[in-house]
């Protein structure tokens, strides 16, 4: 083993409990061609906390790892620094080596002297070597102040509460039950199926919404693992991932507690209701919304090639898109919250064309006018509806974004006045026996639920996911998952996909009896905490940091306490704590101070033997707040 340059230390290593082993990797020349790795090991051997410093050609190889394992097993060292490549490549490799040797894997620090040293300072061997020494010394200072860490274990209630019994909630419940997970499905109304059950026909199977719901209900009711609670609401919610407690109150006012490891929100949407007089709605008998029109298609008014509404046989229908969606400030009246609905409701273009196709199929003689901003038939097969509607004679007009059409009632019939971009802004008057407003989606009012857990809501008032691109169904509140239109407009297939993804996220949390969370969360050292509460104002995670009464010398004092199941480990609290009583485990401020000391030090010998504050990051107890009822 001629590659090994071992510099054993015998003088005071045995005397203290901190004995760091330093291993400097050549990376087969990748590091050692620029950095004098032997000089780094030699310099570090003079660090007062270092018991052994070695350099070796490939630390990640089996013999390289064995050096560490053997030194630990021989009792020579109890902390490890490897100076090598980026930690993204081999930090885990070496942590596992520590574990194999019986040492806590977190008593390890990885120093990057390849990607951030040898590869970027090729021309200056001397300074690159000096930098590598300082960075490695900083790693030693950090690990010397490192305590063993354990992942945080949260017991899991193997049950999910799904709030909302529309298609998304039902779909999620069925998926979870098939997986073997118990579900309580809570629905405010007296029936399952939500908005979908109202639809006369569903693209592309053309079955009725009721039939589609029945199909899902057949799956649902054979599952003994699903408990359905109709006419019920969640009236209280507390706890955290793995262990939520909900109070469910039924229409008679009777309440019951339900415990769950995860919660799926599937509270759905409301149709936009046009304001009185908006595009003739409520003032002209010939104007109705698309959901109302779908009701007409369902109730038999359309029969024998004729559509009768009231006493009138409808010979022409004008469909107006983007009613309550894509609104523009200054053009449209604001909603109750003072803002306009500036979002696209996603489904209305296809839904409108689907309805147009239905009319064309059943009453080919009815003239169809379609007034839109853009036609957004994005889904698979949806473009065909547009092509076919156009082929079968529907006339399409494009109105300018800022100038929506005007609907007037003229002697019992509606007249739509619009500018048409497609004919160069010509103003047109379109008489229509019926005007159908393609109304958009709005979030269902669930302000009570939102208030219970400070659930994040977007500017569009829909529930907000933690990341709109990569984590589309998870919420910032760990363990609470989103399904369907409560999060934003989606069609039926998309709602089912979201629901089944939400079920997968819940199943991940519930797949083991215990959820293991990263140990890198804030930790309060109670004897240093003076109860000043400055940290509370910094914490963005509800319930992660609270004040508790602690007995102290016969009296009672207030101290900060972390709920590790709710803490994200950002450290915002640590920055404001005057006595430094609160720190993120694994990333303490004392560690960073010592690292800076090592970087500015003239040489390694001048670094004092670390004075370690007694700290304990022993496994933290995860507590669920006492019920306030």
């Amino acid at each position, binding site marked *: 083993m001629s590659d090994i340059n071992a510099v054993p230390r015998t003088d005071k290593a045995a005397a203290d409990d901190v004995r760091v082993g330093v291993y400097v990797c050549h*990376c*087969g020349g*990748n590091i050692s061609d620029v950095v004098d790795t032997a000089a780094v090991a030699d310099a570090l051997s003079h660090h007062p906390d270092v018991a052994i410093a070695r350099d070796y050609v*490939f630390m990640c190889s089996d013999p390289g790892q064995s050096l560490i394992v053997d030194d630990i097993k021989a009792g020579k060292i109890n902390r490890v620094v490897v100076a090598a*490549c980026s930690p*993204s490549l081999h930090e885990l490799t070496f942590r596992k080596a520590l574990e194999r040797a019986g040492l806590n894997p977190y008593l390890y620090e990885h120093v990057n002297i390849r990607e951030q040293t040898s590869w970027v300072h090729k021309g200056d061997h001397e300074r690159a070597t000096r930098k590598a020494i300082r960075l490695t010394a900083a790693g030693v200072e950090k690990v010397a102040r490192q305590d063993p860490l354990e992942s945080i274990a949260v017991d899991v209630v193997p049950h999910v509460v799904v709030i909302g019994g529309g*298609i998304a909630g039902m*779909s999620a419940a069925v*998926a979870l039950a*098939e*997986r*073997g997970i118990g579900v309580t499905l809570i629905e405010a109304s007296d029936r399952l199926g939500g908005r979908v059950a109202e639809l006369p026909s*569903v*693209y592309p*199977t053309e079955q009725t919404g009721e039939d589609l719901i029945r*199909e899902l209900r057949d799956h649902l009711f054979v599952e003994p693992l699903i408990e359905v609670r109709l006419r019920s609401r969640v009236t209280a919610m507390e706890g955290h991932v793995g262990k939520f407690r909900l109070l469910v109150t039924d229409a008679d006012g009777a309440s019951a507690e339900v415990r769950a490891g995860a919660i799926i929100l599937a509270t759905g949407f409301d149709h936009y209701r046009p304001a009185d007089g908006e595009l003739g709605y409520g003032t002209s008998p010939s104007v109705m919304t698309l959901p109302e029109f779908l009701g007409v298609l369902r109730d038999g008014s359309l029969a024998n090639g004729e559509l009768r509404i009231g006493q009138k046989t409808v010979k022409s229908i004008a469909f107006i898109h983007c009613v309550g*969606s894509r609104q523009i400030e200054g053009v449209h009246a604001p909603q109750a919250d003072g803002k306009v609905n*500036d*979002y*696209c409701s*996603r489904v209305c273009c296809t839904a409108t064309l689907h309805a147009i196709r239905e009319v064309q199929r059943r009453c080919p003689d009815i003239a169809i006018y379609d007034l839109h901003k*853009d*036609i*957004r*038939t*994005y889904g*698979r097969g*949806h*473009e*065909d509806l547009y*092509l076919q509607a156009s082929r079968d004679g529907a006339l399409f007009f*494009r109105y300018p974004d800022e100038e929506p059409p005007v609907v007037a009632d003229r002697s019992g019939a509606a007249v739509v006045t619009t500018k048409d*971009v*497609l004919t160069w*802004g010509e103003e047109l008057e379109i008489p229509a026996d019926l005007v159908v407003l393609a109304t958009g989606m709005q979030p269902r009012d669930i302000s009570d639920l939102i208030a219970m857990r400070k659930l994040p809501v977007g*500017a*569009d008032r*829909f529930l907000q996911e933690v*990341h*709109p*691109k*990569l984590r*589309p169904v998870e919420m910032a509140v760990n363990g609470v998952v989103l399904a369907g239109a409560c999060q934003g*407009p989606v*069609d*039926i*297939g998309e709602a*089912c*996909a*979201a*629901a*089944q*993804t*939400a*079920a*997968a*996220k819940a*199943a*991940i949390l519930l*797949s083991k009896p215990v959820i293991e969370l990263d140990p890198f969360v804030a930790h309060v050292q109670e004897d240093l905490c003076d109860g000043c509460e400055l940290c509370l104002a910094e914490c963005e995670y509800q319930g992660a940091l609270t004040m508790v009464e602690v007995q102290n010398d016969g009296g009672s004092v207030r101290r900060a306490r972390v709920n590790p199941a709710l803490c994200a480990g950002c450290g915002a609290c640590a920055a404001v704590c005057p006595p430094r009583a609160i720190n993120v485990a694994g990333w303490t401020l004392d560690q960073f101070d010592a690292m800076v000391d090592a970087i500015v030090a003239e040489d390694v010998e001048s670094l004092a033997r670390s004075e370690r504050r007694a700290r304990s990051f022993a496994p933290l107890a995860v507590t669920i707040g006492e019920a306030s009822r």
Partner: protein
Amino acid sequence: MDPENGRLQADVLVVGAGIAGLQASLDLADQGYSVALVERQPSIGGTMINLSKVFPTLDCASCITTPRMASAAHHPNIDLFTMTEVQAISRTDDGFEASLVKKPRFIEEDQCIGCRRCEEACSVFVPDEYDHGLGARKAISIPFTNAIPQYPVLDEEACMLCGACAKACPTQCINFVQEPRSIAVEAKAVIVTTCFDLTPMDAKKEYGGGIYPNVLSPLQMERLLAPHGPYGAVLRPSDGKTPDSIAYVQCAGSRDLSLGVPYCSRVCCMYAIKQAMLLSGSLPIADITIYYMDIRAFGKGYEQFYQNARAMGINFVKAKVARIREDEDHNLLLRIERQDTGEGPEEVQHDLVVLSLGMVPAWKPTPDGMIPLQADGDGFLRLPQSPLWPNLTTMDGVFAAGVATGPKDIVDAITDAGAAAMAAANYVERARRSAPALAGATR
């Protein structure tokens, strides 16, 4: 894995390690199911890892994809096979058997330390496919900066067998005679998440794609916009000039019966708007025009994104582009027919044109039935009609997600993938329940 005879047992085989395949694999592995994840490219990460930024958040694509790639690559329940293709899938008594072939990298992966010394030593340059031909790479190279795994590939076609790489390699891991390797995977369920190709640049001859140097594909523009792109700036390929006027031609490969792509590709409006916004950030004085039929900003936050782009001064012109020609300085002359002014056809000049190409499936079932799935008329995998089960295919136990079943943006692909994972998990559970003796037979 039994390396001796190249056999592996897994609960689920996932075909394709783009963002959908990664997500499906992670959603299964995190539930405790074992996954064999197969990717034919040398790196996982699919198309997403090489994008510049993503709409509507404008997050750096690499920054949000890399952690997900690393999680999958390091997951104890996931066996990852790169440069590996699925040759056949057949049904067995209790699931599926798939035959895979791992193509040679000509590198002993277990010895490689990812140091790129071979790449430095190599003197053969070839066009870089990850920069879509705009940059160059070596004949032996790690495919791109943040590739996972960080192993180089020796390009058999380009290599001159000079041996410089082998001499430079500190671990002697280059193996010029490496052979393809067969691997058999037994799985209880399969998820197909194969990727897409853009419609061909030259599909519409009248646009000059693939002929005029300054007519770019959207993925080329992604690379120009990426901070780690080929030129480090947005420059015209013909002369390295900073473009002052850039045009996007929407639906250049979609909603066009003549191309056999009558459908909407769902992402082109948004990527064009995103690129336009990024361009106006990096080239503040440039004019950017988007010629379109309908702007389909239908996803969450997309309409607001579109309106922001309009407010930023990006020109949206409802017009059809009839043809593009090039002048002697490689400027591009677009013959357009505005639909909003009533004026006759006109010719407008731009320095750079991006054709907003559409999506077509990169893999289709072949008539030999080696992978017995069925495609629909649009070429994407056929789904049963019910919207209740968005991931079923025509084969029981085989599920599909992402762009394998039609164009999707990233978030829709991720949501779809999670649902496919749940469907596959439940299929595995049913298989276990009906064959209790086999329960717990996985690793």
